[in-house]
């Protein structure tokens, strides 16, 4: 995200999900140039780890050359806890259903920005990708 213009604003929300033996990396550049007076950026990178053999990595590059520009960056890592999984199982959901529900909850912020058709497809795709990833 390269800010050249005065007053430019950007928001980056990244949700990375790793399962199985996968490695997921967010690599992002946010740059505010001297000409970008009062530019604003907010970046949130969240990683969700499903299982114990995967990895999640965040490599942000944040460059600011204008004091009136404001950059904020946050990153968190979480997993699907055994308690959350059991709560859903006890309500009759299968493990796949439970993981799908929780993962979709994790991605909610991004999903709600998508047009409906894409969101539905994306949800299905997440379900297929995570098949067999738990246990």
């Amino acid at each position: 995200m390269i800010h050249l213009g005065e007053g430019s604003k950007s928001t980056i929300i990244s949700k990375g999900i790793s399962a199985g033996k996968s490695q997921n990396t967010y690599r992002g550049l946010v740059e505010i140039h001297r000409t970008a007076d009062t530019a604003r950026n907010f970046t949130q990178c969240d990683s969700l780890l499903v299982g114990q053999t995967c990895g999640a990595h965040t490599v942000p590059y944040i460059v600011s050359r204008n004091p009136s520009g404001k950059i904020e960056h946050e990153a968190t890592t979480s997993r699907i806890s055994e308690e959350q999984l059991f709560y859903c199982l006890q309500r009759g959901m299968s493990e796949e259903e439970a993981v799908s529900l929780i993962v979709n909850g994790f991605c909610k912020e991004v999903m709600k920005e998508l047009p409906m058709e894409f969101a539905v497809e994306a949800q299905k795709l997440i379900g297929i990708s995570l098949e067999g990833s738990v246990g």
Partner: protein
Amino acid sequence: MSILEIKELTASVDGTEILHGINLSVNAGEVHAIMGPNGSGKSTLSYVLSGRAGYEITGGDVLLNGTSIIEAEADERARAGLFLAFQYPVELPGVSGMSFLRASVNARLREQGKEEVDQLGFVKIVRAEAQNLGISDDMLKRPVNVGFSGGEKKRYEILQMALLKPVMAILDETDSGLDVDALKIVSQGVNLLRDPQRSMLVITHYQRLLSYIVPDKVHILSGGLIVKSGDKSLALEVEENGYAGINDAA
């Protein structure tokens, strides 16, 4: 006809035996209370019955409607009609309340060979039940348990119970952390769900809840064993003499 039958049940957690041989039979329509001091194995019992990972059954059997469930997974037991109202319900960030409730209800309906709920109709059903428990529309829109107070979480558990219509409901210390007003609302909700075809195990530390949800039988659990059983007056006896008094007599 017994809905729940527990025979000589022994169970361990992390290799340590916590339940040393529980025997219990709950008939259709009955409400049994399980009382006991801290560390007696009350929560262990609820987790063992509901099939939580890490809780190992080392002996005995548990029958739901005449069928053994000890080999069944947690979700299989739930779909067969077993419900656990958690003492500390966990948060599910980003998971909308409606999606969660709908997914649970549909899982149960599919098991019973029935049709899944229609989305709009479901909202109406949920709202109706929610009203009984003083749960606002706003709360229904929030992600599951996120930012809920203790009382709100307990009411939300009972809402789920009302929607899932279990045959056997285990209420794990539903009264913990509740003030008198919240206790009344929750108890009212539970009492509305009493049914000749439904049984309940109410696990509690204090007698107070049992004044509102009056049990048919009371069992005292201590050191992983049921040391005494009786009718509702046993709860008052505990109130008077404490658990130590019961132990001495047992």
